[in-house]
C-alpha cells in the first residue's frame, strides 16, 4: 500500500463547498448574485476530479495489486473493533471515484442552467456538494463503518434534494418515502455488517471491519470453509450476512421489493434525478456487492438471490416503464431496470461487468435525464409526453443526444450500452454458479426480455417527445404562448452551459464502451484487465458453464435482433404520432388488453398494496399501541403523579408553616434589631469620639475599682 497525503482532499473539497454555500450562501446570493454561489460549488468538485485523475495515474504506475492509502485518524480503537477514518484508493474505488467526480461535476455545470433564478439556488448547490462528499466517502472508505457514514450521508442528501421544493406536499412526501424505505435497507446493512464481523471472529478467531483485512482473513487457507460451516438460525453465516447486506443494497439501489421510492424521487429537480437517482447514489448497492465480492463468492445461495432479484427487477421495472406518460417516470423505471442488470452481473460473479455497466449507465442515464430536464425546461415544467412532440426540430442538440443515449441503453451495436449489456447477458447465461434449474438460463431470459422492453420504451419516449408536431398548444391561447416561448411560440434550445454537458455525456455514451470490448472479438479488454487484480482472490470460486464461442455469437446476434425489434415496434407505433393503433387499443381494445394496460400503467398496484399492508398495518398497530399508551401507561403515570402530588402537598405544608416560620422569625428579629440599632450610627465623628471617650472613662473607672 502506497501512503499518500492528498486522498482526503477528494471527498473534503466538496464538503468545503457545501459548508461555504450552506453558511454564507444566502447572503452571497443576495449581495453578489448566482455567480458567487456556483463558482466555488463547481470548481471544488472539478478539483476533486483532477485529484482523482492524478491518483488514478499514480495507481496505474504501481504494480497491479497496489492501492493508495491515507489514514487521517483512529476513529474507534476498541480492541479488535478498529475503525479508522482512512481512505483506500484501489482499482475499484478509482473507477467509482472518477465516475462520481466526473459526472457529478458535469451535472453541477448543468445545474447552473437548470436552477437559474431559483430562490434557493445556494441551498441546491450546498446539498449537491454535500452529496459529492458523502458519495466519495462511501466509495473511498476503507472499512464498513466509514462506508456506512457515506451510505447514510447520501441517503440524507437524497432526502434533502427530493424534497428540495418542499413547499409542495407531494415533494415532501416523496422525500420522506425515500428516507423511510432506505431505513429498512439500512437496518439490513447494519445487521449484515455486525453479523459478518462477529461471525467471522467466532469462526476464524480474527476479524476486522476493514475490507482489505477481512478479505485477507477469509483468504487464509481453511478459513473460508470454517466460515461457510458456521451456521446461525440454520443458515450458513456468509449467506445470512450477504443476504442482509443485500437488503441494504435493494433499498439503496431500488431493487424489488424496496424500489418503490425511486419513481417518486423524481419529484426532485432534474439534475438531482440525473446525479443521485440515476448515475451515482443508486449504484452504491452494486458497488457494495462488488466491494464485498469475497463474501458473496463464498455463498452461491446469496449470489443466486442477488442475480434473481436483479433479473426480476430488470424485467418488472421495464414493463412498468412501457406505458408511462411522464418522461421522468419512464427514465426512473428504466433506472430501476438497469440497476437490475447490474445486480444480475454481480450476482453471477461477473464483478467487473457490473461495474462496467454501472459506469456506462452513469453516462447514458445522466445524459437521458439531463435531456429530459432540458425538454422540461423548454416546455415550462410540463413532463407529460403527450403534450410534447416535434421537439427534435426546435432542440436539435437535446434530440440528438437523447437519441444517442437511447441507442446506447437499448444495446444497439457499437454504442456503449451494447458492450456492457451484452456482456452481462452472456455472463449470466454462461454462469456455472447459480443454483437455479437450467444454470443461468432463467436469469438470461429475464434480462433478454427486459432488453426488448427497454428498447421499446426508450424509443417510445424518444418518438413521443422529439418526432411529429408540437402538441403543447392544445390548452394554451396564442398570446400565452408568445409570452412563454418567444416569437416562434415553440420551445427552443437551451443555452451552452446545458448543451455542452449533454454533448460530452452523449459522446461517452456512444464511445465509452470501447474500453471493454468482448473477448469474442479478440480485442484487448482494458476495463476487465484494470479491475482483475481487485477480484483475483475469488476467481477460483467462480465457474463458467463452458459454452463455446458459437453460442456466444448466437446470443450476441439475438440481443441485437431483440434491441432492433423493440426499436422498430416503437417506431412503427409512435413515430410522428401518426399510427392510430395505440390510441385505438385503449379505447376500443378488448377488455383483456385494457385490463393489462391498466395494471401495468398503475405499476401493478404495488404502491397501493404497500399502502394497504405495511402502511395501514403500521398505522393500525400504532393506533392500538397508542390506545395502550393512553389507557394503561398513562394511567400508571397519572397514578404515580397523583401520589407524588399528595406527598408534595404535605411536604409543602410542613415547609410553608413550620420551616418557613422559623426562618421568617429569625429574619424578622434581625431586621427589627438592625433597624433599631441603625439610629446609633449617626455618621458624626464627634459622636463617635465622645462615645470612645465615655467608654474609656468607664473602663478606667472599672479597672481602678477592681484593682
Amino acid at each position: 500500500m502506497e501512503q499518500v497525503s492528498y486522498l482526503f482532499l477528494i471527498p473534503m473539497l466538496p464538503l468545503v463547498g457545501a459548508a461555504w454555500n450552506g453558511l454564507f450562501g444566502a447572503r452571497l446570493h443576495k449581495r453578489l448574485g448566482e455567480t458567487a454561489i456556483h463558482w466555488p460549488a463547481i470548481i471544488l468538485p472539478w478539483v476533486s476530479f483532477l485529484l482523482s485523475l492524478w491518483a488514478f495515474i499514480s495507481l496505474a504506475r504501481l504494480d497491479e495489486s497496489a492501492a493508495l492509502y491515507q489514514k487521517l485518524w483512529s476513529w474507534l480503537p476498541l480492541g479488535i473493533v478498529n475503525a479508522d477514518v482512512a481512505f483506500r484508493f484501489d482499482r475499484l474505488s478509482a473507477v467509482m471515484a472518477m465516475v462520481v467526480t466526473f459526472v457529478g461535476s458535469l451535472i453541477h455545470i448543468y445545474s447552473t442552467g437548470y436552477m437559474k433564478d431559483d430562490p434557493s439556488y445556494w441551498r441546491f448547490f450546498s446539498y449537491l456538494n454535500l452529496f459529492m462528499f458523502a458519495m466519495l466517502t462511501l466509495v473511498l472508505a476503507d472499512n464498513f463503518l466509514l462506508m456506512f457514514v457515506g451510505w447514510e450521508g447520501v441517503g440524507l442528501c437524497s432526502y434533502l434534494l427530493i424534497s428540495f421544493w418542499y413547499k409542495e406536499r407531494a415533494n415532501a412526501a416523496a422525500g420522506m418515502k425515500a428516507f423511510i424505505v432506505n431505513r429498512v435497507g439500512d437496518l439490513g446493512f447494519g445487521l449484515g455488517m455486525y453479523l459478518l464481523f462477529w461471525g467471522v471472529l467466532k469462526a476464524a478467531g480474527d476479524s476486522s471491519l476493514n475490507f482489505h483485512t477481512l478479505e485477507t482473513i477469509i483468504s487464509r487457507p481453511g478459513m473460508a470453509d470454517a466460515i461457510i460451516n458456521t451456521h446461525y438460525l440454520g443458515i450458513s453465516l456468509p449467506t445470512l450476512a450477504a443476504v442482509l447486506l443485500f437488503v441494504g443494497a435493494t433499498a439503496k439501489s431500488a431493487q424489488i421489493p424496496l424500489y418503490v421510492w425511486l419513481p417518486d424521487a423524481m419529484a426532485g429537480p432534474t439534475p438531482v434525478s440525473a446525479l443521485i437517482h440515476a448515475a451515482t447514489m443508486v449504484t452504491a448497492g452494486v458497488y457494495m456487492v462488488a466491494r464485498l465480492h469475497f463474501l458473496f463468492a463464498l455463498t452461491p445461495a446469496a449470489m443466486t438471490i442477488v442475480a434473481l432479484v436483479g433479473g426480476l427487477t430488470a424485467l418488472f421495472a421495464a414493463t412498468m416503464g412501457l406505458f408511462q406518460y411522464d418522461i421522468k417516470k419512464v427514465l426512473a423505471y428504466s433506472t430501476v431496470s438497469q440497476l437490475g442488470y447490474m445486480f444480475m452481473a454481480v450476482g453471477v460473479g461477473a464483478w467487473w461487468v457490473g461495474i462496467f455497466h454501472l459506469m456506462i449507465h452513469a453516462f447514458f442515464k445522466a445524459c437521458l435525464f439531463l435531456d429530459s430536464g432540458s425538454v422540461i425546461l423548454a416546455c415550462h415544467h410540463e413532463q407529460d409526453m403527450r403534450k410534447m412532440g416535434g421537439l427534435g426540430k426546435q432542440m436539435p442538440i437535446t434530440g440528438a443526444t437523447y437519441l444517442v443515449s437511447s441507442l446506447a441503453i437499448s444495446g444497439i451495436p457499437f454504442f456503449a450500452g451494447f458492450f456492457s449489456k451484452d456482456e452481462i447477458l452472456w455472463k449470466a447465461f454462461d454462469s456455472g454458479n447459480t443454483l437455479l434449474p437450467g444454470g443461468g438460463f432463467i436469469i438470461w431470459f429475464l434480462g433478454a426480455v427486459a432488453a426488448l422492453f427497454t428498447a421499446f420504451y426508450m424509443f417510445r419516449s424518444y418518438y413521443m417527445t422529439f418526432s411529429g408536431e408540437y402538441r403543447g398548444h392544445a390548452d394554451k391561447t396564442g398570446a400565452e404562448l408568445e409570452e412563454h416561448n418567444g416569437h416562434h411560440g415553440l420551445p427552443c434550445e437551451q443555452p451552452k452551459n446545458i448543451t455542452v454537458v449533454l454533448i460530452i455525456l452523449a459522446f461517452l455514451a456512444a464511445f465509452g464502451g470501447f474500453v471493454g470490448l468482448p473477448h469474442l472479438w479478440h480485442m484487448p479488454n482494458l476495463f476487465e484487465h484494470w479491475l482483475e487484480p481487485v477480484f483475483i482472490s475469488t476467481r477460483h470460486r467462480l465457474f463458467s458453464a463452458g459454452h463455446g464461442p458459437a453460442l456466444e455469437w448466437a446470443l450476441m446476434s439475438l440481443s441485437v435482433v431483440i434491441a432492433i425489434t423493440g426499436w422498430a415496434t416503437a417506431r412503427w407505433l409512435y413515430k410522428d404520432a401518426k399510427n392510430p393503433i395505440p390510441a385505438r387499443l385503449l379505447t376500443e381494445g378488448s377488455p383483456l388488453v385494457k385490463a393489462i394496460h391498466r395494471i401495468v400503467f398503475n405499476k401493478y398496484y404495488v404502491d397501493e398494496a404497500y399502502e394497504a399492508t405495511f402502511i395501514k398495518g403500521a398505522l393500525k398497530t400504532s393506533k392500538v399501541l397508542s390506545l395502550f399508551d393512553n389507557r394503561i401507561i398513562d394511567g400508571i403515570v397519572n397514578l404515580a403523579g397523583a401520589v407524588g402530588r399528595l406527598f408534595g402537598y404535605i411536604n409543602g405544608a410542613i415547609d410553608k408553616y413550620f420551616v418557613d416560620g422559623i426562618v421568617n422569625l429569625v429574619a424578622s428579629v434581625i431586621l427589627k434589631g438592625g433597624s433599631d440599632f441603625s439610629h446609633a450610627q449617626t455618621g458624626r465623628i464627634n459622636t463617635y469620639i465622645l462615645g470612645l471617650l465615655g467608654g474609656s472613662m468607664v473602663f478606667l473607672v472599672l479597672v481602678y475599682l477592681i484593682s
Partner: protein
Amino acid sequence: MTITISHLLVVSIVLLASGLYCVITRKNAVALLMGIELILNAANLNLVAFSRFVTGDIDGQVFALFGILLAAAETVVALAIVLQVFRAFDTVDVDRTDKLRG
C-alpha cells in the same frame, strides 16, 4: 525647681484634654486635624518623659521621633483630603459632608 516626670505628665494630660475637646466640639475639618495633632503630641511627650525618667535608654525618644514624622505625613494626606472635600462640597464642615450616609 527641678522638673520631674509629674510635670511632664501634667502637661501631657492638658494637651490630651485640649485635643479631645477640640476634636469633639469643632466641626471644621482643619480644626479637627489640629486637635488630632495635639493628641499625638501628648503621646509623644509621654514617650519622651518615660524614656528620660523611667527606662533611661533612648528607645522611647527614637519612637517619639518616628511619631512626629508620621504625624507630619498624616497631616499632609489629611490636608489634601480636606482640600478635595472643600472643592467638592464648598465647605469643610464635617457635618455637612454626609453624602454617603445611609
